[in-house]
């Protein structure tokens, strides 16, 4: 069960090698989390992540999960929920893709969309139903500022996150009053292996800062969390910039 500060005792991470997710797990283990499920494609990296968290004293299990195989989500996640209550599901999987390449290869672009959006729709709905049955829990969805307004430089990724973000908001409203809390997290540029080699955007942040914001959001039962918080104001302004001007901004 979550405590008065929204801290979970058990955590399911979808996308078990995500740096943001692991930073969040480390932070939550330091407070209350004892059981962690890392869901992801079986790989040495997934096992390494599990080992790292075990070192912090948590009881960590890995579970085979592929965002691109929605037909298997019910079975894979059902197994986890059958083992006991899950206080928090962190939906953290996602790929950035390579915009220039993906524009040339539609199949690659579709893979970005399927992972980030349709995979999340399926896993999100499966998780939401299980949380609703247990009558409590938080579903934390890692969205992105890229979904707030499509940019020339990464609109394939951005559009997939826009879809995810809208889905998660609607899901949160659908689950209002059911004891299940849905929180959409919109980080800006996060320094991680996903963004390695990319030019850093203004207001860049770290996985640890996102983890801190998630912990605070859990305590406040926030519905939307921006990381850093100033992005909320910045994006709200950028959203209203006229298209002609927005196109020309060096974003």
């Amino acid at each position, binding site marked *: 069960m979550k405590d*008065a500060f929204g801290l979970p005792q058990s955590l399911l991470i979808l996308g078990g090698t995500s740096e943001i997710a692991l930073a969040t797990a480390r932070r939550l283990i330091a407070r209350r989390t004892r059981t962690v499920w890392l869901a992801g494609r079986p790989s040495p990296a997934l096992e390494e992540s599990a080992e790292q968290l075990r070192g912090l004293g948590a009881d960590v299990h890995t579970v085979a999960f592929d965002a691109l195989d929605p037909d298997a989500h019910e079975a894979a996640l059902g197994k986890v929920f059958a083992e006991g209550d899950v206080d928090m599901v962190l939906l953290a999987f996602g790929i950035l893709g390579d915009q220039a390449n993906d524009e040339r290869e539609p199949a690659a672009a579709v893979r970005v969309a399927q992972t980030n959006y349709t995979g999340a729709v399926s896993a999100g709905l499966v998780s939401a139903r299980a949380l609703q049955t247990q009558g409590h829990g938080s579903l934390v969805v890692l969205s992105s500022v890229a979904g707030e307004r499509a940019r020339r430089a990464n609109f394939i990724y951005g559009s997939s996150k826009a879809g995810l973000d809208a889905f998660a908001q609607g899901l949160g409203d659908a689950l209002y009053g059911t*004891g299940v809390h849905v929180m959409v997290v919109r980080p800006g540029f996060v320094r991680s292996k996903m963004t390695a080699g990319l030019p850093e955007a203004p207001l860049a942040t770290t996985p640890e800062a996102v983890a801190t914001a998630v912990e605070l959001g859990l305590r*406040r039962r926030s519905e939307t969390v921006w990381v850093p918080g100033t992005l909320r104001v910045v994006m709200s302004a950028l959203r209203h910039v006229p298209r002609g001007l927005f196109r020309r901004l060096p974003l």
Partner: protein
Amino acid sequence: MSADAAQDIASATAPASLPVPVTGWGRTAPTAARLIRPGTYEEAVTAVRECGARGGIPRGLGRAYGDAAQNAGGAVLDMTGLDRVHAIDAAGGTVLCDAGISLHRLMEVLLPLGWFVPVTPGTRYVTVGGAIGADIHGKNHHVSGSFSRHVLSFELLTADGSIRTVSRGTPLFDATAGGMGLTGVILTATVQLLPVETSLMSVDTERATDLDDLMARLTATDHHYRYSVAWIDLLARGAATGRAVLTRGDHAPLDALPASTRRAPLEFQTRRLLAAPAFLPEGLLSRTTVGLFNELWYRRAPRARTGQLQRIPTFFHPLDGVPHWNRVYGRGGFVQYQFVVGHGQEDALRRIVRRISEHRCPSFLAVLKRFGEADPGWLSFPVPGWTLALDIPAGLPGLGALLDRLDEDVAEAGGRVYLAKDSRLRPELLAAMYPRLDDFRTLRAELDPRGVFVSDLARRLTL
């Protein structure tokens, strides 16, 4: 039939009521449960038999601060529909009543007959069932012990759907007293009452300049009073750390009353002010506002005054005058922290008070009290020593870590925290705090092998 009653019956008989969010008095960590309000014992039995895979938990008036009367995904049995008085022995001073009756109602019924409830907490709006389940204490603990000491027997609806009569001195009695509703649903109870001549209290007030002064005063003279409690200013720092206002007293004898009130000495008057509005901004109770309040409260108290006559609500239940006072903390809610450390652990108490004071917790409702002898309830909270209770807004930065730290201090000193108020204890510390926990778990496993009775508190702490 009133519209309210009609609605109550409709909701009680609705076949599959939809889950609704439920919280404790602190309004933190809401979870959804089906609320079922039995109107008869048969309905209660049916509700227990049919509460489903995620079990059920009885709930009274929802004054437990944390998650004791919540049951995510399962059933919550609102027992306030069973609230009759069955029999009063006006000569011997016992009452047989339904467990869903409030202490407020009992006072209304019993005071005119010259009897008072044996133990009352800081609110009259708790049920008899909740009073046993949390084994509550009041300002008279150092003299009268906790509530269960005055309970002669009760009827318990257990997981198999049967109703057992449970008497004092049996394991089931001791598991249920303080057992947080996890052994079953208390349906009725027979309670021993306290004779009183009047409905007024004779109260002595004095100030203590710091924590040591306070402890010295309580130790020296507590035994002169039936009721004793100290309001403590936890925002005061330096030499004033732990400054306090002691209020102690007893039921006023008839000859202490002025002639004007002597004609109706047992009249029970309560006053309700305006309810706190549903939406209040967070941060209303900040360090500044609470600091100001504490300063005024301390200065306003007389240095020493004796024999002041006060009404029962003024002395025992000042906050009951403001319905929904818990809303003043805003939507983030608040955490209540209460612990006890034994006599001889005064240093631990000083250390904890210093930590709280250094963290600048804006708490306007902090009280310190000396507990007397413990009662046999396995998970009953009071043990002889010092107990401190305080409310803190849940949004206070660093609060979770601070309270974890205090838990360690408390456990190290052989003390414990109060489960009826808990909403955040680290489960690992529970066994050290409650040495009879294993007995409790064993009895529950035998009595309720399918785990019919379960609450969020029980899940969080694996009770």
